[in-house]
């Protein structure tokens, strides 16, 4: 509610920055769900892109323009496409899991580059979304998408908190420590990993759809490995404990990206790298550990 009111008075560049942070933060939220089980995917760009392409195609080819519906469709499509890979990926840990997810995202990137329907390397543009049948005037579209993105992100953050604190969430944390014991207590580690992978896919797909609607454009770069790397960057920056930290970290990245690309365009990755080094050295559990002690 506070963010909704602030959005009315904030300059457009700021509401856009927060919208992007919330959309990207959703993808990193999915990574955090997986990190809690001890695996880190390096290919969440895949579900981000699938969510984005799904929303954009529905908009352009099917004429479905509702922002909330497109966000949901992006999440559902990403989950459906990720589903066949979940049982396979649930068998792998560490670098193997990371590399397999990276491979899938690069295959998606390759398909995006080659398939004409997806616009090839240039991608394609998306028009202005509606909200529950209402077509906002041009001057208000940015604010409406800001409201939708922040609202959806807040809802999903709350649901993620409920999930992380649930019995299933606690068993995921336990699996990170000792899979053998979880199995000997009657829990299924692979099932937990599969479910987390699908939840992460849904988060990534919703994030991709929302970002595309605000950006007005989709391209294969969404699934490129550097994009996935940025999502991992945010997840590590946030840590696995606090949900709010994910969106704080995502905002930090967007701020650093925005300002540094304006003032020192060729060295902003250097600033990001140094910042990450600092966090890993002094806050190994991420910035969320500053206020989350459990």
């Amino acid at each position: 509610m506070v963010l909704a009111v602030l959005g009315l008075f904030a300059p457009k560049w700021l509401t856009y920055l927060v919208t992007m942070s919330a959309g990207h933060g959703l993808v990193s939220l999915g990574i955090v769900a997986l990190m809690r089980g001890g695996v880190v995917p390096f290919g969440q760009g895949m579900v981000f892109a699938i969510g984005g392409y799904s929303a954009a195609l529905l908009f352009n080819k099917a004429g479905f323009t509702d922002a909330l519906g497109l966000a949901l469709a992006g999440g559902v499509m990403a989950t459906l496409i990720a589903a066949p890979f979940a049982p396979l990926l649930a068998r792998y840990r560490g670098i193997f899991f990371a590399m397999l997810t990276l491979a899938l995202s690069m295959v998606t990137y390759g398909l995006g580059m080659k398939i004409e329907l997806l616009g090839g390397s240039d991608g394609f543009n998306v028009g202005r979304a509606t909200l529950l049948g209402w077509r906002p005037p041009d001057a208000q579209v940015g604010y409406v998408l800001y409201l939708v993105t922040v609202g959806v992100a807040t809802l999903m953050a709350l649901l993620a908190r409920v999930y992380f604190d649930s019995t299933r969430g606690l068993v995921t944390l336990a699996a990170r420590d000792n899979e053998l014991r979880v199995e000997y207590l009657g829990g299924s580690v692979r099932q937990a990993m599969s479910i987390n992978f699908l939840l992460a896919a849904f988060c990534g797909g919703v994030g991709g759809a929302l970002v595309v609607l605000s950006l007005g454009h989709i391209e294969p770069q969404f699934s490129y490995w550097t994009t996935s790397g940025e999502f991992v960057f945010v997840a590590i920056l946030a840590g696995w404990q606090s949900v709010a930290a994910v969106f704080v970290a995502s905002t930090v990245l967007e701020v650093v990206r925005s300002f540094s690309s304006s003032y020192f365009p060729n060295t902003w990755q250097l600033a990001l790298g140094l910042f990450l080094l600092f966090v890993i050295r002094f806050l190994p559990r991420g910035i969320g550990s500053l206020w989350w002690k459990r």
Partner: protein
Amino acid sequence: MSAALLEAQGVEKRFGAVVAAADVNVSVNAGERVSLIGSNGAGKTTFVNMITGYLKPDTGQIRFDGRDITALHPRAIVGLGVARSFQIPQLFGELSVRDNMLVSGACHDAHLSYWQPARRAAAVERAETLLQRFGLAEHRERRVVELPGGVRKLLDIAMALTVRPKLLLLDEPTSGVSAEEKFPMMDTVMAALGTERDTTVLFVEHDMDIVARYADRVIAFYSGRIIADDVPDKALATDDVRRYVTGELLQEAAA
């Protein structure tokens, strides 16, 4: 005489040339407390691992509560009412003692919930009851990595008892525990099990004083074979056990 809860018939297991189990035939009645003894490599833990489904026998059959469990997955066997502790405690190091108990309770639920809080009052109360029973309540908020070895052992066993199993397998429950703590620790475990004898206990043990005090029956292994199966007084007095397990005959011969 009670009905057999656990039956192993003609069980064999080899690891290359090493015979870990050879024609093992065991029948354990409900309510019994049975100690498995033998020197290192005799096949005790292999037998426990085959009961829990971690290892599959090359031949033979294992039945639990009237059902063939030989080919079942460990999780399915747990679901039938078999729980175990480990020689080296298998815990969740980064979680608190109470959360370890909560995980244990949650894993036993048929359907894990996506929204029911893990730390809800009923679950915490259930965990707290067991922590009290095992004398672990004072450690409830501590992370497991901070705990001394004896406390970890107790927690490992307490987790196995979260949902009362029909069969409890304890793999060397007193190993790594100081001599003066062994009996108090076993007293705590046995007190926690209660007097109703509704949980059958198989425990692997090297300390013969512990075996003599807490077991109704002793099964001795040597090179994968059972060399004695009797009440403790008789089993521990056989020549084979004195030669291959306790080493008394060898010591006498050397003297």
